[in-house]
């Protein structure tokens, strides 16, 4: 025997409704918790992913020869922004917005500019020591090889070892502008490609 929770009437075990008041004897199914009840969305920590992306793009964009990867549509920088976004997306499996991707990209570009400038200056100083006495010979070799244009300028500049405040400032701000911009684009496109975007809230 079961008892109606509404009016207290005794009912047969298989009764689905109360014979007296008509109330259901079957308990209502438990509703799954709504996203709001499940708790607030985790706060995103941008620093760790941006540092990783920044280190990646800063180093690879500054090491001689390897940095040539940037000649392919700023490949290393785009990839650095993408790495930052992939790490960020792991923090929130429900998805991140394009704005989150853009912000992670800009931050990784900023870190990358700092890392990249330090690495570039270090390589320049090392090259200066190595080629100090051989500047003219290097120019002759380049002339014999027929190297012209940007490649020749780049080799001579890299070997000159000239590190002035103006060089440092120009390198840093160029890196900052280019890395932030392209890492931001890389971040946004990674969000789009991976479809990690959550619905944009108004």
């Amino acid at each position, binding site marked *: 025997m079961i008892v109606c929770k509404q009016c207290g009437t005794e009912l047969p075990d298989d009764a689905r409704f109360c014979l007296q008041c008509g109330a259901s004897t079957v308990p209502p199914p438990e509703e799954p918790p709504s996203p709001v009840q499940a708790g607030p969305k985790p706060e995103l920590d941008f620093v760790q992913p941006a540092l990783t992306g920044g280190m990646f793009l800063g180093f690879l964009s500054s090491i001689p020869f390897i940095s040539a990867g940037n*000649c392919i549509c700023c490949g290393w920088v785009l990839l650095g922004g993408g790495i930052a976004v992939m790490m960020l997306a792991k923090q929130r499996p429900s998805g991140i917005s*394009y*704005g989150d*991707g853009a912000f992670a990209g800009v931050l990784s570009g900023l870190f990358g500019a700092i890392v990249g400038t330090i690495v570039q200056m270090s390589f320049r100083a090392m090259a200066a020591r190595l080629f100090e006495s051989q500047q003219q010979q290097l120019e002759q070799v380049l002339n014999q090889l027929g190297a012209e*244009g*940007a490649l020749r300028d780049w080799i001579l500049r890299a070997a000159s070892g000239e590190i002035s405040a103006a060089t440092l400032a120009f390198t840093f701000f160029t890196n900052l502008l280019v890395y932030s911009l392209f890492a*931001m684009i890389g971040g946004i496109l990674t969000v*789009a*490609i991976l479809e990690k975007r959550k619905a944009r809230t108004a």
Partner: protein
Amino acid sequence: MRARVALLAGATLWCLSILAAPAFDLSPVYRFFAAICHQNPARSWYVFGEPLPVCIRCASIYFAFTASLWAGIRPNVRWLRISLLLMLFEFAVARFVIDAELLRSLSAVLVGLAAAPFVKQGVEEIGDRL
């Protein structure tokens, strides 16, 4: 709104500087773009007898990107993926078979057109936060 205008103005200025560099012999512009492009004259378009400061692929991406912003093309993930795959395919495989300017330019134009609406959306969202 302001972010959108800034992006549009920035992209237009970017493209204008590419065109202005050979026209007015602006060496700082060549130096700036040297950081992001190989600037091989054999793989560049010429304006006023001088090569542009970026190669054909880069120039195609930038011009198409800016045109897409002006035209207000809507974002489409499928097109973005297809265009990126086409450009990667062209870069990795097609260049060894047919290294044609037209192929390089077309694949890059598709990427520029498809990417711009997403970048616009991201910049708008980041602009809303600031």
